[in-house]
Structure formats: C-alpha cells, structure tokens
C-alpha cells in the first residue's frame, strides 16, 4: 500500500502529463506523442489508485475488462465519417460515469457508520456533478441520435436504429417506473411519482418524429428551475437519496430538450458544448471525492470545450443563446428561390470542367458536410493527385463550421492522405481567392453564401464565409438546388462565373477524373 503523500505526488505527475500532452496537440508533428503522454498520465493515475488502499478487485477488474473491450472495438471499427457520432457518444459515457460516481459516493457516505455526515463541499459537488452529468448524458444521447439520424426524423429506420431508439426510450421509461414502484414506501408518493414521470417524459420525447413541439421552451425553463430547486433540497437533506434521483431525472429532461431542437450546421456547437460539460462534470466529481487530479483534468477538458464552443459560435456570427434557444430559418422578405435562380442557373458537365482545368494553375476545393455524406474524400484525393501531376496547385479551404463537429473536414481529408499543409484556414484561403482559377464547392452551401455579406436581415448575416465568388470560375457540385441548413437560397449558384454540376459528390469526382484523363 502506498502512503498518501506518494499517491498525491503521483496524481500531480499525472496532471502535469495531461497538460504536457495537450500542449503537444498544438502541432500535427508532435500531436501523436502528446496523446500518448496523456495516456501515460492516465495509466499512472489508475495504477497508483489501485495501489493506494485495500480493495475488493472483483468489480474493478470485470468493469475495466468490459469497458476496455467495448472502447477498443469502437475506436478501431469507427469510420472517420462517423467521428461526430462517436465523440457524441463518448461525451455521454463521461457524463453518465460522473452521475454514477457522485450517486455512489453519496449512498456510500450515508451507508458508512464510521465517517461523519457528508460535509458541505461534498453535498454541493454531488448536486453539481449529478445535474451536469445527467444533462451531458441525455444531451449526448440526443446528439448521437440526431447525427446517426434516428431521432426526430420522419423517414423509415434501419433495424439497428429502431432497436437503439425504442430500446433506449423503453429502458428509461420502464426503469424509472420500476424504480418508483419499488421505492414508493421509502420515498413517499410525490417523489416516486416525480421519478416515474420524468422517465416517461424522457422516453416519450425521444420517440417524437419532429424536433420541436408546443410548450418546448416552457418545459425547458421549468426543468431547469426544478432541477436547481431539487439540488438545493438535496444539499439541505442529503439523507433522502430519492430526492437526488428525482433531480437526476429532471436534469435528464432538461438535457433532452436542450439538444432536441438543434441540428445540422449547429451540431458542432452542441458537440463542443457537451464536451465541455463532460469535463466540468468530472471536475465536480473531483470535489465530491476530494481529488485534485480529477479537478485539474476535468477543468482542462471543460476549458477546451468552452473555447471550441466560442470558436464555433464566432464562425457563425451567432451567440450561444441564439444557438440553444433560437430558431433558424428564412426571415420575412428575403428573396425566394424563384427570384434568385430563375433563368440564371448554368449546368455543366465533367468534360467542360476538365477543359477549365486545362488553363488553370490554382484550384481551391471547399468541402462541406456533403463530402462526408458522399464519402467522397478518397475520390477527392485522386483528383488532387491527378491535377498536381499536371502542375496545377490544389489547396483546400476549410470553414470552421464545415461538417458536423469542429475539425471534421480535416480528419476526413487526412484519412485520404491529403497533407495537412494543403488545408487552409478561412482567412488564408480568402486571401488566396483572387489568384484562384477554379474553386470547387463540394457539399458546402451556407458557408459560401454571399448573402452573409450583403443582406443584414438574413439568418446568416455577418457570418464569415469563404469568398469563392472572387475566384475566376466557381464549380458547385450538388445534387439539386435545395437549400442548406439555414433554409435560404444561395445567389452564388446564379452568378455569371458559377457553373452547377448536379451530381453525387463521389460520382462527380470520378467522372471529372475520367474526363481529365481523356482530355
């Protein structure tokens, strides 16, 4: 058994390793090593904890084995296009772990005859950890379900989507009812009914096939207020663990509603925010069990998530409040599709695009979520290599909110072996646009809409965009003229120097490659 001093020293070393590891993430060259340093810190913290006291290792080892196998399978199998879902899901596990540790610590403290009553710090931290953790868990499940497209959709689901969707709702609702019934004597009728109701509410909302419903904002506010009130009651009366569970349930309702109406281009904000919550929940858990390394690592993650959230909001010129509570959609009096498009759209073919490349020296590709959906990143790489072999310089312009999570496009292009120094941030890409002969928009829409610069009443007014209209020729690869997430028409498509290539992203790339080879 290690002495307390050595354990604390080792925790300090682990925290330092986390910080050094994150620091090394500031450059792709050092990032692999940085991640491993952080992993080493984690290993150190785990080993030292296991050596710090006399434990019954049975549950620790079984739990660790199950978690390690599931985590490893997920990490190895996941496709790069599905990274947003994966990160969403992992955030949720972090939140759930925090709730369970806080709950377990509360129950254990009340059960123990030797230790004194839980002190103020522990009581408040338990409440914070419970509320943040529950919001994170249920919010992350909703984010996962929306990214995997089985929540709040009207179309027919695959069998596995049905199992997850109905299974989760059933478990939450039935679990809460069962828990309420078996504890009704101990808890009293009001608390038991409250727990049953919150479970049924969560399960029910998750089955809705629309992402908005009447009374949503009222319920949002109500669940936020009630969970805080319950939190205060738990602090005043920690012996009543049923109060704690009711608080978890109501916070769960809040987590579901907060994320349910958010989708599409707002997804990166939500994923970053949930990431931050999972860190803050871990930090709160650190206060519950009085452990510095949890507090330090939790706050690092919390800070990281907050920074990413604010970067994403700035990249859309929207406030966080507007993302969480606002409604995205066309404003009154903005131009209709007919006015913008009629008679001005020029469709093009792969052959014509190949001819454009003949005289080109600089090509800029602007990828968006559509590239991920079409899994077109490898075909994009082939086209890039082909053009470069003909002495055409190809670069990529990455908008901060392109895709469904921060950095989504960069990971996909890295997967396709496109060197990271070809990926240009928005400002740099815009400064190169004057010298660009051909700009190719692949599955992006709102982030290249010039309306953001011109129409102050538009829902994307003031959002920084990639100025593809300044390139000599712009090619838009898109299946139809359908609007992007903002729901507004894009005048870029109707410009004189814009050509539309109506096609699936991947097929379009392959056809262009063949046409270039033949020319």
């Amino acid at each position: 058994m290690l002495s307390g001093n050595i354990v604390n020293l080792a925790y300090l070393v682990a925290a330092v390793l986390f910080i050094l590891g994150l620091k090394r993430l500031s450059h792709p060259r050092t990032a692999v090593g940085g991640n491993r340093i952080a992993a080493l810190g984690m290993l150190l913290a785990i080993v030292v904890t296991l050596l710090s006291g006399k434990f019954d290792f049975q549950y620790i080892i079984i739990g660790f084995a199950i978690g390690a196998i599931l985590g490893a399978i997920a990490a190895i199998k996941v496709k790069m296009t599905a990274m947003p879902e994966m990160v969403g899901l992992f955030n949720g596990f972090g939140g759930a772990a925090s709730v369970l540790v806080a709950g377990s610590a509360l129950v254990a403290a009340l059960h123990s005859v030797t230790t004194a009553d839980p002190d103020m710090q522990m009581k408040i931290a338990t409440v914070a950890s419970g509320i943040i953790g529950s919001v994170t868990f249920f919010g992350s499940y909703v984010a996962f379900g929306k990214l995997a497209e089985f929540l709040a959709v009207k179309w027919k689901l695959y069998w596995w989507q049905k199992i997850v969707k109905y299974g989760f709702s059933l478990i939450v609702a039935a679990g809460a009812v069962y828990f309420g019934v078996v504890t009704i004597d101990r808890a009293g009728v009001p608390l038991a009914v409250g727990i049953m109701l919150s479970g049924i509410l969560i399960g029910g909302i998750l089955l809705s096939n629309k992402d908005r419903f009447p009374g949503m904002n009222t319920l949002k506010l109500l669940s936020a207020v009630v969970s805080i009130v319950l939190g205060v009651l738990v602090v005043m009366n920690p012996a009543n663990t049923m109060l704690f569970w009711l608080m978890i349930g109501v916070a769960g309702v809040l987590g579901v509603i907060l994320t349910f109406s958010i989708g599409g281009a707002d997804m990166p904000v939500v994923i970053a925010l949930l990431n931050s919550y999972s860190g803050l929940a871990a930090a709160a858990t650190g206060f519950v069990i009085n452990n510095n390394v949890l507090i330090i690592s939790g706050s690092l993650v919390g800070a990281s998530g907050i920074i990413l959230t604010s970067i994403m909001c700035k990249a859309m010129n929207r406030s966080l409040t507007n993302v969480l509570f606002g409604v995205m959609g066309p404003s009154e009096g903005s131009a209709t599709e007919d006015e913008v498009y009629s008679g001005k759209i020029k469709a093009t073919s792969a052959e014509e695009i190949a001819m454009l490349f003949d005289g080109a020296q600089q090509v800029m590709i602007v990828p968006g979520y559509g590239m991920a959906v079409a899994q077109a990143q490898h075909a994009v790489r082939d086209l890039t290599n082909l053009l470069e072999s003909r002495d055409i310089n190809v670069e990529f312009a990455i908008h901060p909110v392109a895709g469904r999570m921060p950095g989504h496009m960069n990971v996909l292009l890295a997967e396709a072996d496109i060197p990271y120094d070809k990926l240009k941030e928005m400002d740099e890409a815009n400064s190169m646009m004057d010298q660009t002969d051909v700009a190719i928009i692949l599955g992006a829409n709102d982030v290249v809409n010039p309306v953001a610069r011109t129409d102050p009443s538009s829902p994307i007014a003031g959002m920084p965009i990639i100025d593809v209209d300044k390139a000599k020729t712009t090619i838009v690869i898109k299946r139809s003229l359908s609007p992007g997430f903002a729901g507004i028409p894009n005048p870029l498509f109707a410009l004189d120097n814009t050509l539309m290539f109506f096609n699936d992203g991947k097929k379009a790339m392959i056809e262009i490659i063949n046409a270039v080879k033949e020319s």
Partner: protein
Amino acid sequence: MILTVFVLAIFVGFEIITKVPPTLHTPLMSGSNAISGITIIGAMVLAGQMESSKLATTMAFIAVIFATINVVGGFLVTDRMLNMFKKKD
C-alpha cells in the same frame, strides 16, 4: 484550497487549448474526452470498497465500465486519427 486548483487549472486549460490549430480540433475533442475519463479513479475506489452497500457498488461498477470506454476508446481513436495527419513529402 481545492477551489484554487480548479480556477488555476481552467486558466492553464485556456492558455494551452487556444494554441491548438483548427486542423486538430477533432483529435483535441476525442483526446480531451479520454482525459475526462479520469472519473475512472473515483469509480474504481468506490467499486472496490470492502464494506459498502450493494447499490453503491453496483453504480460504481457501471461507472467503471463507462469511464473505461471513455479512456481506452478515447485515447485509441485519437491515436488512430493523429497518425493520419501527414505533411507533404
């Protein structure tokens, strides 16, 4: 005292994370997510307690599973992603 640690750590977090370039934002999220799996420490201690209530042990046991998924899955998938980032040769 413990609150001081919290506030200082948040400042350290802001300092180092602002330097991470947008290219690495996805690995940053998955990597920091793995770090937030540090709750595994609390979960293990509670799951391994000799004389505890059955409820407390069960909850801590499930927490060990969840936190381990975070830790193992998070670090592995980040490693996988970061290995794909290459410079032009």
